[in-house]
């Protein structure tokens, strides 16, 4: 068990070749990758903010667009209630992910979660990993609905500066969520096929780190793009 915990913490355990840092090189790699992703998303968010309020034609995110800027009067295009729900869904997916990781790390300790139906659910890594994937897919469904409704309302990636920067930023984020969902489904398939145990804790932890990063990026996007007028 100590080996599993060490693996999850990124510390090289027994049976692994030594590293100069004494840490798991795969965990160092995912953190370095996340660091580089921070720069990517910051550049996309910066671009959105730099162009904020500089669109010549509508639709606009938070303002009503009146003629002659728009052919007809158009209401603000962002749908805050829908996006708030999708934000909640993504936050809950992060909770499901940590529960999945805990289930994998403790798989060799039957009864670690106690007794009763809730404990059985807690101990099932399959339930939590699948739930994370479903919540991620639900978030993508919300995003597809949002993109479709925007296009129907006349906002495309080529329409104005807002459309270009908005679709690029949220599209990149959606692509990352899609990769995360596929990754989670792969983990689920492995869990069904041979079962994920403490020895696999690092694999799940790396996927979880990626998933939580996608979540924190959305936390920033939700505030900077959707809420700040």
């Amino acid at each position: 068990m100590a080996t599993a915990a060490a693996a999850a913490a990124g510390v090289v355990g027994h049976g692994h070749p030594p590293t100069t840092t004494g840490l798991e090189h795969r965990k160092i790699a995912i953190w370095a990758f996340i660091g580089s992703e921070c720069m990517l998303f910051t550049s996309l968010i910066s671009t959105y903010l730099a162009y904020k309020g500089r669109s010549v034609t509508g639709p606009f995110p938070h303002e009503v667009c009146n003629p002659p800027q728009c052919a007809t009067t158009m209401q603000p295009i962002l749908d805050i209630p829908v996006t708030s729900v999708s934000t909640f869904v993504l936050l809950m997916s992060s909770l499901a992910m940590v529960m999945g990781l805990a289930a994998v790390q403790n798989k060799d300790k039957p009864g670690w979660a106690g007794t009763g139906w809730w404990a059985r659910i807690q101990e099932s890594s399959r339930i939590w990993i699948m739930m994370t994937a479903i919540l991620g897919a639900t978030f993508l469904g919300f995003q597809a609905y949002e993109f479709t409704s925007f296009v129907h309302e006349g906002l495309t990636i080529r329409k104005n500066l807002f459309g270009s920067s908005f679709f690029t930023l949220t599209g990149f984020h959606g692509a990352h969520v899609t990769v995360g969902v596929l990754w989670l489904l792969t983990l689920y398939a492995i869990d069904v096929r041979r079962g994920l145990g403490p020895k696999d804790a690092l694999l799940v932890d790396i996927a979880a780190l990626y998933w939580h990063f996608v979540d924190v990026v959305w936390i920033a996007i939700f505030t900077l793009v959707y809420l700040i007028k």
Partner: protein
Amino acid sequence: MADHSQSHAGHAEGEHAHPTWSTYWKVATILTLITVAEVWIYYIPAFVATKLFVPSLLIMSAVKFAIVVMFYMHLKYDHKLFRVLFTGPLIIAAATMMVLLFLFGHLFV
């Protein structure tokens, strides 16, 4: 229920006990409450018109960001090198964003 702590007696160097499941649920509740507060103030026109609106949203967002990174990504408990790998690029990125916004006239104008 039993104690669900995932802490272990013998920790290797750089390894610390991860939070318990109850901590994860508390964190989720806090994240939800902050999100509700963010959306709530968005719908208060009198507050939106004040100078407190944007800073309060930024602070709440930063708190959510930090909570997820510290507790869900376990950065609070993991090795220092991981913290450096994350916060280093984050600081560079944040500084770059501030400079860009200054150049485009969104800051201090």
